[in-house]
């Protein structure tokens, strides 16, 4: 049992939202990504995929399986283990007419390429007064479980959300995964697409034809009146489960899927908090200076008068990820913790 299989087995489950109607099929997160990339490759000769070993039989956890065969090794390229250099190379290609999609199997490898991402990719448009754009898409996958430990399970979205000049999106559903990836590739803003490994088996209705979901808009996944629960990526599913449980005890929770952590949809947060008066934020990453801090700050700036209870942040513990399974379990937030936190708020 390879490491990766076991990880895939532990995901939470999203509800299917539609069947096979009018070009809309049920698709897994993995297949939605694959379809987006297939369509981008077939529509635009400037698009190419590149990443370490991405053309192998695993096909990046199945998310690009078969594409190397269809498009050949010049459009689905293997690359050396040289994350910073290759980010620069992709940036150079993006500045000169191409639309590269650079793929990392783990978010943890992004720190290697921080110089190119932060100092070059994110700044190039501004630094050149808009003369040169960098339409680069970077996909990176958040690992979790099976002793992935400190260097193979980080969820570093906050580091990138902090930097102006990048879009950072974290689709939580197959539908969003396809649309946000296509929008990233089609746009001119460099975009980081962070996918959670535990979402890969989730299934929902996804239209066949290409469609774009631009970075910057959140979505209400569940309406409610007593508390606003804002989440991203894998945590959205956890919030949905928590909301169901809360309903049992008569607490009506609204769940917002932020989808994009840069830009952030401030209005959807503010409107919801104005309605419910309470805010909980659930992140896949750390607390200090994280997404949850930003969401909390936005609420206390723009919905202050509506807030009726202290904001609550649900994040991973303030330590690197431990390998031991018992510690792992203590490290990650869970549904019970969310439910308890909301109860405390009421």
């Amino acid at each position, binding site marked *: *049992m390879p490491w990766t299989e076991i990880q895939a087995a532990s995901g939470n489950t999203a509800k299917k939202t539609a069947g096979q109607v009018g070009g809309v099929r049920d698709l897994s997160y993995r297949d939605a990504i694959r379809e987006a990339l297939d369509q981008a490759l077939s529509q635009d000769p400037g698009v190419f995929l590149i990443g*370490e070993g991405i053309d192998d039989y695993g096909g990046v956890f199945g998310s690009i399986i078969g594409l190397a065969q269809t498009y050949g090794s010049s459009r689905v390229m293997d690359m050396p*283990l040289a994350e910073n*250099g290759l980010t620069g190379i992709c940036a150079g290609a993006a500045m000169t007419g191409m639309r590269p999609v650079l793929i990392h199997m783990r978010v943890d490898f992004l720190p290697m390429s921080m110089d190119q991402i932060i100092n070059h990719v994110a700044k190039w448009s501004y630094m050149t007064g808009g003369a040169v754009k960098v339409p680069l898409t970077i996909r990176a996958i958040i690992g979790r479980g099976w*002793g992935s430990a400190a260097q193979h399970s980080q969820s570093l979205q906050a580091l990138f959300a902090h930097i102006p000049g990048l879009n950072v999106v974290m689709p939580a559903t197959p539908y969003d995964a396809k649309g946000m990836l296509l929008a990233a590739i089609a746009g001119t803003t460099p975009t980081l697409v962070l996918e959670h490994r535990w979402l890969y088996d989730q299934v929902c209705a996804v239209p066949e034809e290409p469609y774009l979901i631009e970075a910057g808009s959140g979505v209400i996944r569940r309406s409610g009146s007593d508390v606003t629960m804002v989440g991203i990526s894998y945590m959205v599913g956890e919030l949905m489960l928590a909301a169901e449980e809360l309903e049992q005890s008569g607490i009506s929770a609204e769940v917002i899927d932020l989808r994009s952590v840069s830009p952030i949809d401030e209005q959807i947060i503010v409107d919801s908090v104005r309605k419910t008066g309470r805010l909980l934020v659930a992140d896949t990453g750390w607390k200090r200076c994280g997404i949850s801090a930003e969401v909390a700050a936005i609420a206390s700036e723009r919905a202050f008068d509506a807030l009726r209870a202290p904001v609550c942040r649900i994040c991973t513990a303030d330590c690197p990820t431990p390998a*031991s399974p018992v*510690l792992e379990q*203590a490290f990650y937030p869970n549904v019970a913790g969310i439910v308890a936190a909301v109860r405390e708020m009421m």
Partner: protein
Amino acid sequence: MNLPDISKTELLRLYESLTRIRLFEERIVDLYHEQEMKTPVHLCIGQEAVAVGVCSQLEREDYIFSTHRSHGHCIAKGMQLRSIAAELYGMDSGCARGRGGSMHLVDPDCGIPGSTAIVGGSVPLAVGAALSAKMQGNGRIAVAFFGDGATEEGSFHESLNFAALHKLPVIFICENNFYATNSHIKARQPAGRIASKGAGYGVPSHTADGNSLGVVYEFAAKAIKLARDGGGPTLLEFETYRWKSHVGPASDFQTGCRSESELLKWKERCPNKLYRTDILKAGMISSEELDTIDKMIKSEIDDSFEFVRTCKQPDINTLLDYVC
């Protein structure tokens, strides 16, 4: 035949070390399906000679830094199997108290300040330990173990440059097993260039057979001497092959990522079998003596995994310990 020119006791010690690594990892293969060892294992079966040929000549105080594929290096450097086994099961008595798992073996008392799962990470760390040794004048040397893939990372280049500039007592050991995950080296580098990089820094560099313990021993001996004598770093590329899939206990040729015939060709050149044959041929050691060692190692391994059953998982109240 390619045997180091050392005493019988020493020859047996090398045999013991090779066997310990092989059998320990084979035990992992046997047990992994139970799903109790919840850690990604990167096995080095097939590559044992490099670990043993290098580490057997190091002093306990000398430093090694290893990678995601660290079991062999750490065992050869003298780590107790109990502390490794317990770590694989995430136990509080593991070498990293269950915080690290397979990819982060550590034992400062054996000169192992740690292992990293970030490719290329071990290289500058070893150079730093060599700098430290030089500054402290304690006579120690440092070894960086890393794969062919790691030579593509900028950190490799930055490390070679600094080590050469300051003539640091560090040895760069590249285990070229021709693959990084499932990607062949041809897809990542111009052919046959790893050792040729040394010239760019004035660092003596060699490519050699990593499946012959004798060959590894000889090249390592020279490099160690050079480093200890203040002559600076050496880059050694040992060609070898991993038998198992990149991660986990299975084989992988079925997936088409490489051919079974390639694997079989390398299996014929099994480093452990080659060495066993060589020492038997040399005549002063009997196969009974080797069988006795095998048996001893087996019970050592039995003991280490039995030990695990007596261990405790970490207390969740200690989650935030050791952060800094």
